[in-house]
Structure formats: C-alpha cells, structure tokens
C-alpha cells in the first residue's frame, strides 16, 4: 500500500470514488479557486485547507455556534455546510476582522467586560456581533436575544457577553460597568 497523503483531509483525491467539484470562493477578500471533495465540510475547508483556525468545531450539528462565520453578510454555521455550497460566496472569518495590531473595537469590549473565559466559543460570538453591527441592530431590539441564542458558552454564564454585545451595538455605557484597563 502506498503511503496515503495525510492532512488536510481530502485535499488530494487519489480515490476515484471520491467525487470532487470546482470551488471558487472569496475568503477574507481573497479569491480562491480550487477543487474540493464534494463531502468536505466548509468548516474543514476553512480550518484545515486554508488554516483559518479561529473558527472552532464544537458540536458538528449547528447547535452551538462555535464555527460561525459570515457568508454573504449573514452569520452562518460552517459545520452544517459543504464547502461546495459556498461556491461563489464571500466569506469572512475572524482572521479577516483582526486588526493589524492589537484588538479591534469589539474585541476590546469583550476583554474589558470579561466576556470570555476559555475562549473556545469566542470567535463565533465575534462573527455574530460583526454581522449584527453590519445590520445596525439596535441594542434594545428583541433580535439581540435571538442572535445570542445562536451560541453556547459553557464558561461565562452569558452575563458579561450580554453587556459586551449591547455595548458593541452602541448601548449607553452608563448602563454597564466599564472597566479601566
């Protein structure tokens, strides 16, 4: 048996029974044209093929939100999509939002509010907040709770995440404790 090519998964497709399709996708502003196995999950394409590992896979069924990325201006689960379904799409991952140096505005708010502990779910939350800001969601809108219901955090108990998200959406800082760095 010849040594099979190892990770990333399904990158080379020596197996003729492994069907593949062309994929053209824009990720963080960069156009990528490649071939992928039809069954390759978008989360694996982003994490293992493009090495964009900010998004995490935690439940594999769309329930927890750790793999959330922004696709065509909407937050979406990368673990419940095939890479090929993203053909023609514009994807933003957390890597695309990171400031060249230091933390961006929303990240700073999350730090100041202690809105993360283990940090595994955090990239997903940040993608949702990014699209909420893009949509100009009002901090008092009932939609905020709906968006937040799309993520599981096992550590923080959500209290500080609520505060951080509302501040990121422009809520009055008077209503929440702002901490000095």
């Amino acid at each position, binding site marked *: *048996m010849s040594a*099979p*090519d*190892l*990770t*990333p*998964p*399904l990158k080379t497709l020596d*197996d003729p*029974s492994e069907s593949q399709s062309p994929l053209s996708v824009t990720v963080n502003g960069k156009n990528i044209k490649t071939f992928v*196995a039809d*069954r*390759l999950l978008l989360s694996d394409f982003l*994490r293992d093929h493009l*090495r964009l*590992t900010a*998004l*995490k*896979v*935690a*439940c*594999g*069924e769309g*329930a*927890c939100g*750790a793999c959330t990325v922004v696709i065509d201006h909407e937050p979406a689960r990368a673990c419940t999509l095939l890479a090929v379904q993203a053909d023609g799409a514009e994807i933003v*991952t*957390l*890597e695309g939002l990171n400031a060249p140096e*230091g*933390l961006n505005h929303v*990240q700073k708010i*999350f*730090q*100041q509010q*202690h809105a*993360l*502990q*283990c*940090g*595994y*779910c*955090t990239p997903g939350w*940040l993608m949702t907040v990014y699209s909420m800001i893009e949509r100009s969601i009002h901090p008092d809108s009932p939609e905020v*709770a709906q968006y*937040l*219901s799309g*993520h*599981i*955090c*096992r*550590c*923080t*108990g*959500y*209290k*500080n995440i*609520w505060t951080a998200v509302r501040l990121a959406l422009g809520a009055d800082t008077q209503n929440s404790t702002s*901490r000095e*760095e």
Partner: protein
Amino acid sequence: MTEKTLIPAAPPKSRRYVGEAVLRAEDRELLQGRGGFLADLAQPNAAEICVVRSTEPHALVRAIRKERALEVPGVIAILAADDLDFVDEKLPCVDMIPGTLDVRQRVIARDRVRYVGQAVAIVVAANRYVAEDAAALVEIEYESLPPVTDHMTAMDSGAPLLYPELGTNIVYQVTQQDGNAEFAARQGDLVIRKRFKFHRQTAVPLETRGVTAKLIENGERLHVESCTQLPQVLRAVLAGAFGLSLDSVRVTAPRLGGGFGCKEMVYPEEILVAAVARKLQRPVRWLEDRREHFSSATQAREETVDAEAVIAPDGTFIGLRVTGWANIGAAFGFVGNTPITAMGAMVRGPYRVPNLDARMHSVVTNKSPLNVLRGAGAPQAALVMERLLDEAARILNIDRAEIRRRNLIPPNELPLDRGRTGFANSYHIIYDEGDYPRCLEEALKLAEYEKFEVERNAAAAKGKLLGLGIAMYVEITAVGPYETARIALQPDGTVLLFSSIMPVGQGSETTQRQLVAEELGVALEQVAIRQGDTDEVPDAVGTFASRGAAIGGAVGRMAARELIQNILSCFAALLKCDPSIVKWKNGGVAIMGTMEDYIPLSEIPVRLRSLGGTPESKGIEARFRLDVPKPSYSYATHIALVEIDPETGVIKIPRYTVAHDCGKIVNPLLVEGQIVGGVVQGIGAVLREKLVYDSEGHLMTRAMMDYVLPGASDVPEDFRLWHMETPTSLNPFGMRGVGEGGTIGAHAAMANAVADALRDYDVPVDESGPFNPTWIMEALSRPLRAAALKMTEHD
C-alpha cells in the same frame, strides 16, 4: 504547551496587583482566534484516528473482522486489543481505599464490553473522513449479555454482574462518622426521612477531547499532547503503560477549551493513541467529535441518597444519617469514588449538626464511567441538607432564614474538626476561618429577603408562581498534597514562570502574573507564564478541586520570592560584599552603602554579565515546592428567585444573589466570572440537562440538541454578588478556591426555590430534577397540600 505573548497594559500606578480587576493576559490571543487549542495545531504528518466504539451496553466480544475496512483507500491500520502491547493496561483511579474492588478501566475492550462508547478497535487513516468510512465497516460480533443501568437495581441479588468474578456490583464502601453516630430521636424531636435522587449529567466543555502522539528525539522519546487537566499524571501513566522511564515520556497540554472536571481523567484514548504511534512508528492524532464525547467522556452526579435527620423542636439538627449509592457506570474514573465520598463528608455544610453517620457506596452499571464534574459531590450534599432544612422549617413553622441561623457554626467555633473522611489519605475535614452567619445575613440583605412575600403576592396576582430558595454550603478547595513551580530570570530581563496549572478558562495566566509581579514589584508585562509541559515542570499535581489560583498561584509567588533571594545572592557573590547590603526594592536590586546602586529587573542580566558573572546558561532560576497538608474551605450563601409560568412550566429567574468567601481575592473580575459561570451551569443542570439512557443501556442524548445546555436567555435577570474576604491561615497568601462554588450553591438554591414556588402542591422535591417544563407541569397536577386547601376554603 503554550507560550504567552505579553499584553500591553497601562503602566500601573503602583506595583500592587493582588485584588485588582486586571484585564486578562490570555484574552488577546483568544479574541483573535489564535488560542492554539489542540485541534488548531498543525500536524502535517499525523495520521488520523477514529475509535470504533461499542454499540452494545453489555456483551462479550466474539470476533472483530477488519477485512472490509482495510480495503478502504487511505486506511493505514486497524488495531484491536490483540494488536497492542501494554505493560499495564489499566487506567488509574486514585481513590481506591482498602477493601475497594478493582474495577479500573482497561484502555481497550478485551473480550467484553460494558458500556456503549467503550473503545473496541482503532482505525488509522489518512484523514478523519476515510477513518470514519472504514470504522463503519469494522464488523464486531457481540454476544449480548443482560445489562443493568439502574444502580439500585444493580444491587439486587440476581442482577446482572458486570464483573462476575467479583460476585457483586457494589465495588466501594466507606463509612464517615462524627460525634455520636448512634444518635436517636428523643421524644418531641422531629424525624425527617427522605430518599434523594440525582440525575446523570456531563460537563460538555465546548472543546471536546483530543490527543496527538509521536516519537521524538530519534524515536527515543514518546511525546503525547492531550487536552488534559493532569499532564504530569498522564506522563506517569504512559510510562507505566509501556514500561518506559519517566524521562522518556513528554506530555504537553495546550490551552483547554473548558474542562469542568471532565478532563481530570486519564482516558483510554490517551494511552491508545500513544500505543498506535509506538506500534506504527508514526505521528497520529485523534480528535473526539461531539457524538463520541457524549458516550465516552466521563459522566457525573448520578446517585441516590437516603437521609434521616433528627431535629429538636426548636429546629436545631441533632444528627444526620445518610446512606448513598453512586451509579459509577462501568468502571472507575480517575476520581470516580470522590463525588459520593465528598457528598457524605460535606453534607452538613456550614451547619453544626453534631452527629453524623454517613455510609457511601459505589455501584457499577452499564453506563459510561462516572467522574467529577464542577463541585464533585458538593452539589448533592448541599441539596440534601438544604432541602431538609426547608422541610424542617415548613413542618416546625420556622422562618427559613431563622432555622439556618439556629444551626450555623458561629465564627468563634472555627477552626472546627468535622471528622475523618473516607478519602484515600483519610484526612480530617477541618473548617478553617470564616463567618458563616454573616455570609447568610449579607445575602439576605442583598436579596431583599424581607420583601419577598410582597413580591410573591404581586406575582400571584399576575398568575405567576414565585419561589425563593436559600442555600449555603462549605466546600473543600485548594487541595494538596503539594505543588511545584519553577521561575527563571530571562536574558532579556523578564521573568518566566513555568506553572503546572493548566489554563482551562479560569484566567490562571493572569492571576499568576498578578501574584508574581506583585511579589517582585515589577510591571505585569515583565512576567510571562508557560504552562502544560512536563519537560518544564516534571513533578506536579494538576488542575482541579479549585486549586489553580490558591495553590498554583501561591507556589508561583513563593518561587518568585526564592528567585529574589537567588538574584541577591548572586550579586553579593559577584560584588564580594556583605549580603546584608544587597536588598530587593521597588522591583530591582538595591545595593546599600559605599557601592550604592539600583538595578531594575530589566537590567539585571546585563549587569550580571558586566560584573563578570555568567549565571548558568538558563539564567538565574528558582524552584519551589509548596506542601499543602490541609485543604481550605470556601463557603457561600445563594438565594435564588424563580418565577414559574403555571400554564407552560417554564421557569424564569428574576433575581439571583450570592454572598461568598473564598479568602483573599486576587482578581475580582475573574472571581465574579467563575461565580456567574458556575451558577448558570448549576441552573442548567437542575432545569434541563440530563443524560438519558434507555432501560437497555443505550445512550439517547447523543448530541447538543439532545442534551440541552443553558443559553443566553437563561441568565438571571438581576445578578447580585457580595464578596467577603476572610483570609485563610492555611495558605501563605490567604487564598482559597472559587471555581466550583457557583455550581454547588445553584443546585440547592434552585431546588429550594422550585419547592417554594410549588409549596401549595404536594410535591416532595427530593431530587435534582431536572425541573424542566414537563416536571413542573406534572408537579402542578398533584393535589394541593392540606394547608393550601384550607386557605382556599377560607377564600
């Protein structure tokens, strides 16, 4: 292994950090998605492993056929028990006492499977997709055996035996007593007997488990990387499993995406993945997926407790008799007997209850192995005691706060010996400093207990059932037996602390930097932390039992204190001067007298070189070993307010109050985070989370949509927190642990609140629920209590 970059923080006004809400150093990488979790680390040459798991709860393994699976392109190997060599194939359990029957788990099933999810074979393939394709084709021929899933049934004669050679399913028994264990009721005393049931839960850290293994240094050493809270323990187990010297094994652990006790375990996969790397002489990796996690990560909490309380007419508890049986699943976890032991040892909490007779048992069943989960047995202990208090208050018609006042241990009786435990080293529970009555009063005030009946009536007018639950607990924290740390002055004039405490989200990097920077009197940025590498910290205990900040922090700070002494000695030697004129001041070396000089930390390496001294290649170092003979005892009062919609059974939490004392607080921001996070975990546990097995032993909750965790909509609307800070004399810096208390208190407070909201109904609430909408609606269909009926008639 994680190396920390330093976060630029504003220069401190003073070099005082302990007690300050310093923002976390770890946040920068985490917020940028560069946390470096195990699954994020590139393993370009690693083959992927998929574990073939038992689909049978109880069966003999008759044959394993690999032929079809081996034909899948990309498959490298398929291995079962017979293909792997171990010197010792049993996983460790540290709480086996004399008389305990040995039901330690084997790393891979040999001949017999005892739970769904148990590892039976291993597929090694080019990637996980192919590995799963092949795993589906591995044919295992089972001969089914009758299963037993309920621990109370498992004790019946004639119940199926998991280990027929032992002749019983009861594998561990311990008796813990205090005062007069033969106590009996006198005339006029109230006796309450209740059977409490606790349901099975699991931790569900967002990050599942994962292991990589490879041979390093020309194949002479084994390097295993794992998502573990116990790297040093794992190293010893790996060495034992393969008959290797300790030095030839290196274990590293990256930052963990949550642990909560589920990673305080040495798992079969950690040994198996290493065995595969050794057998195939190639790097391999296994990443657990969530469906695997539900059946093969440890589970928690399930037990039954019979309680009998004897209570004087004034409400003071005379004695408590508890008999408990834990459903520990098919084999011992690393600390599988700890929850039931701790339950018996700590059931009295902060209440005097002079007489105790606790008899605890572990029973094996065909479920996944049980281990600790945040709080270990303390949530069960608090729930039993606090339900008994409320029940006594109701029967004796005493106010719920008042009956607690009458039973609390006053501060002048502390420290107090509460008797010998059944833990392996039989230590005595000796409560250290504290003020339990004040903790209760602060919480009552903060929760506005006085106005509760008004609120209850207002809610009733709107058709809602409001309930208030008070709960107090004392928990074992900051356990020993010891911890070590190493600290080094780096050539660039910073210091690097090698810590054995694993970052699981608790902010250990930040608290340890605060402690070290304060000790040295330098800026936070001058201190860096490295964690999770047994080559750097070979001897350590690990991260569990709320010991990270209190013990790990203390030993790091003591190491820094040693480092100062070593630096000063070095200067004195090089300057050939009287050591007494070289002092540590304002974060640097101050030389007194004729040679008066001041060298800040950042310039010390340069200055040492210019003085002709070449401190060993590693720079100046210090090591410290902190012996911890006794744990310390944190405590708290929780007051939960619940609002039940009697039409749907849905519960809201309008207010939640905590007054707590974890000794000296290093960082209030992080302490608050631990408490709020812990409380919400506890709320989820009693309102919703439940692992469900069918009667045959098949796990029904296999995904996150099945096992419903708390979400953002479940946060208490108004969360109130009061810190008390009574330093403990057991810790050099007065610190106790705080990581688990939120969860402990929430179980009992929520159960009492639910019982209170349903006080008009004849519902015993002698369980941990979960009090989900179905449970609530069933409770509301029960008959009204006699007292409530009378009131209705008067209306």
